[in-house]
């Protein structure tokens, strides 16, 4: 009946706090308070309860055999451990979160590739002071004037000027 040691994985709350995105900060704080409360409660309970001094009772209680019976039954009593129903749920949650996070990271990498491509375009283009109009139109296609659709100057709708 000796208390078992809980296998706790230590959580570095400082590093954890650093990684929390700003929009989930309140949720993180709630989790932290809850965890702290649980830990405090666990720490307030001693691991083994105060032992019963059987010899005192044996000498005090007159009825013969009663204390012995108490002791025997108390020693024989096995206290059931509470069943764990949440770990499997947490594992499922983690698997799901892993999946969504990997999807997110894939998307993020794709976005980074796109950004870098645009950055490359900016870095490799001809400097503005050495550009001709054709170079400008090649680099930024939106600056090209559509002379077929708007045959007269300024070759674009007046509203866009």
């Amino acid at each position: 009946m000796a208390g078992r040691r809980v296998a706790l994985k230590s959580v570095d709350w400082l590093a954890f706090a650093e990684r929390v995105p700003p929009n989930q900060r309140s949720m993180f704080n709630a989790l932290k308070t809850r965890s702290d409360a649980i830990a405090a409660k666990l720490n307030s309970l001693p691991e083994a309860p105060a032992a019963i001094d059987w010899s005192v009772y044996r000498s005090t209680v007159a009825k013969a055999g009663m204390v012995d019976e108490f002791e025997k039954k108390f020693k024989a009593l096995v206290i059931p451990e509470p069943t764990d129903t949440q770990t499997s749920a947490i594992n499922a949650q983690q698997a799901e979160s892993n999946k969504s996070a990997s999807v997110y990271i894939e998307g993020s990498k794709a976005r980074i590739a796109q950004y870098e491509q645009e950055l490359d375009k900016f870095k490799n283009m001809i400097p503005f002071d050495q550009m001709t109009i054709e170079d400008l139109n090649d680099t930024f296609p939106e600056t090209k004037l559509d002379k077929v659709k708007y045959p007269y100057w300024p070759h674009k709708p007046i509203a866009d000027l």
Partner: protein
Amino acid sequence: MLSRLVIVSAAGLKSSSPLGAGLVQASRSLHTSSQSLAPVPALPEKGGKVRHGIFPDEIFQLLYPKTGVTGPYMLGTGLLLYMLSKEIYVINHETFAAASIGAVIIYGVKKFGPSVAAFADKLNEEKVSKAQEVKDVAVASLAQAVEDEKKEQWRAEGRSMLFDAKRNNVAMLLETNFRERLHMVTNEVKRRLDYQVALQNLHIRMEQEHMINWVEKNVISSITPQQEKESIAKCITDLNALAKATQATAVA
């Protein structure tokens, strides 16, 4: 301009040394296609070199090998004299008008040219700097976006901590619950034992009280009226004796 290009390219073919520093595009030899993949050279900032404000330097360079340094001037003077003497070019009132207009134009260009050029340059530079600013902002925001994405990825990597914390909480709750059960069992057993002790103490006390009461009652009921009278008479005689004894001591 095209005629000048022909002259320039001819000179370029003849002597491979580059002639006009300004005409970069034109100083390349024609009829070659191997440079199509080469990066486009920068646009010239200034026009080609000219002499006396109008005659391209390339003409002089072209004529020097054949005629020496006075050759171009000799050619020009000879051509002019030839045109005048054969009346190909006739000096009439229009020539004077052209000279006057030319003088005024040259004066205007010399006088106002630099400031107009500065103004035009300023307009152009404003445009370019605006475009450059937009480009810088775009580059900075893109770099920032890349940075943010990487940071978000790093944050997403930290999710295992959340689940560690959750599992810890569950484990701690289970342990707390188990300990509470242990404490409850021990306390209950202890309370029952204490109850037994208290019950026993109560029994002993009540037995004692009952025994005292019973003995008292029996003693009282065993006393007969005769005994009572005798004892009262005895008490009275005792009191008398006591009274006499105290009187005697008080007198003495």
